[in-house]
């Protein structure tokens, strides 16, 4: 009897431990504060580089939206710039054609427009996977770009919509030459969106996305409405990319059709993979390192700067397959094992 008692006690303990793990998974961990502290510290350390800093934050937001679909749901897309572009042009056209320039509500409008396009295209495209999907997403972005080009009377074509003047933030804070307000504005938006994305990732829905990435056959077999799940997350990611695009227009005060470029889709994917997919903070690490390197190399050699970026990528692919954060994780494990032995 005593033996079976201890056995069942052990079982209850094992159950408690397992339950505790799942209950604690989503809890906030202190290292998560680090990127935000760095972002705030950067504001005080590099006050004259805040225009650049704002652009970095926008790319973090853009990469974060891609992480939701690529890193979590496993949707491979080469047309994510489509939604960035829709958002950018929603902001641009609201000012240039309708004279509406209130920044915050513009973000909502951009999210809605990009989300709508994400919903419609996603509904059709997400029946496909792999290379087919890659080509179809790429084609979508090109088609949107060409539509803009066709109606350059509205979009301004490749000359773009220059000289857009945004209303002061909250009707109070006007934009300074050094981009200080812009930086804090972008950081604030990023923080709010990040909170939403983090909730989604750790929700049962987020788990289902991971399930689709891990084994879609099994998801069908357990009754998951896979297509609906994919369209839902694609729409959300599109909306977030739209917000990033709108921020881009607002902080640069101009927008051209190059926002739809394949370059833009590829760049954001490279950033994310560089940082590490499916881990939220990969978007931060990847975008920051890529943008800083790009900035550094382009100053070092204005004609030859892409070589540096290329080298960085080759090194990342060879030695950091799971991205920079994966590399840090491995290093951490290695050190803790060394300490133990």
């Amino acid at each position, binding site marked *: 009897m005593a033996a079976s008692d201890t056995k069942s006690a052990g*079982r209850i303990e*094992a*159950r408690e*431990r*397992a*339950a505790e*793990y*799942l*209950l*604690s*998974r*989503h809890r906030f961990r202190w290292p998560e504060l680090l990127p935000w502290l760095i972002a705030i510290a950067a504001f005080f350390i590099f006050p004259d580089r805040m225009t650049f800093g704002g652009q970095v934050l926008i790319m973090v937001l853009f990469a974060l939206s891609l992480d939701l679909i690529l890193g979590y749901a496993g949707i491979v897309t080469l047309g994510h710039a489509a939604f960035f572009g829709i958002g950018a042009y929603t902001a641009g056209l609201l000012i240039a054609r309708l004279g509406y320039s209130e920044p915050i509500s513009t973000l909502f409008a951009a999210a809605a427009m990009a989300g709508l396009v994400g919903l419609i295209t996603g509904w059709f495209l997400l029946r496909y996977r792999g290379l087919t999907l890659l080509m179809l997403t790429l084609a979508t972005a090109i088609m949107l770009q060409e539509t803009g080009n066709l109606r350059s009377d509205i979009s301004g074509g490749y000359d773009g919509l220059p000289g857009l003047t945004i209303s002061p933030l909250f009707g109070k804070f006007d934009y300074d030459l050094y981009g200080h307000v812009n930086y804090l504005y972008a950081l604030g938006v990023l923080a709010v969106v990040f909170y939403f994305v983090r*909730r*989604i990732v*750790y*929700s*049962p*829905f*987020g*788990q*289902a996305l*991971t*399930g689709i990435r*891990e*084994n879609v*056959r*099994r*998801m*069908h*077999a*357990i*009754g*998951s*409405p*896979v297509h609906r*799940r994919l369209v*839902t997350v694609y729409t959300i990611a599109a909306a977030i990319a739209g917000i990033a695009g709108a921020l881009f227009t607002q902080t640069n005060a101009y927008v051209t059709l190059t926002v739809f470029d394949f370059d833009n889709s590829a760049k954001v994917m490279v950033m994310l993979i560089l940082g590490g997919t499916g881990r939220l903070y990969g978007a931060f690490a990847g975008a920051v390192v890529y943008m800083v390197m790009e900035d550094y190399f382009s100053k070092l050699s204005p004609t030859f700067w892409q070589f540096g970026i290329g080298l960085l990528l080759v090194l990342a692919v060879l030695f950091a397959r799971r991205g920079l954060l994966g590399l840090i994780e491995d290093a951490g494990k290695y050190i803790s094992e060394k300490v133990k032995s």
Partner: protein
Amino acid sequence: MSAALEVQGLNRAFGALPVTRDVNLSLERGARRALIGPNGAGKTTLVNLITGALKPSSGRVLLDGADITATSQAERARRGLARTFQINQLFRGLTVLENLCMTIGERDGECNNLWRAAGAKRSVIDEALDHLDSLRLVDDSLKLVRELPYGRQRLVEIAIALAQKPRVLLLDEPAAGVPSSESHLILDVVAALDPDIAVLIIEHDMDVVFRFAKAITVLVQGAVFTHGTPAEIMANADVRAVYLGEEGHKGGRRG
């Protein structure tokens, strides 16, 4: 009362090759039926047709009397039709517990929730642990599936199917690929399944088939060769000729 699962005149061809030919099959509530047949007889294809992973070219599939031929695989699963795969289809990068919670979450529509934390519902975790407990997998619950030995992974495959709370369960060679020293674990689980669940099992090991099944369907070249009780099948000279004869030398376990 209508059968738990009924298959009527099911046909399917891959190109010019017919792999399922006019198959009729009926599973009463609580049925224990084995589906046997030589390699390439179309057993797994039949399971894929029943679950909706494949579409039939003609014929009907009925679950509790309702025609489900046109419904999606996921819809069939939600209506109580579960399966295991011949080759594991698991979330290998997730823990065993997460595999189970995912299944329960999708079954109950929990996974429509974008806001609540996935671990916040204790009832889901408790149920997942109950399923793992009954298959003695609790100690493995926090291990990643890919870190488990294959035999244990096979048990997770069954645990997932059971967590769906199915009324009809299709087991595609549950002990395939498992060393015989461990396969009895899996077969014990199969033998102890809820008597209300209608079970169709594909299995090559005749000892298992004769021990477990109350009825046997023999499939040969995509068509039903014969139905019968284990005793009838064993006594059937034709079946011995096409199938049981091969069993003597214990051919490959893949079908």
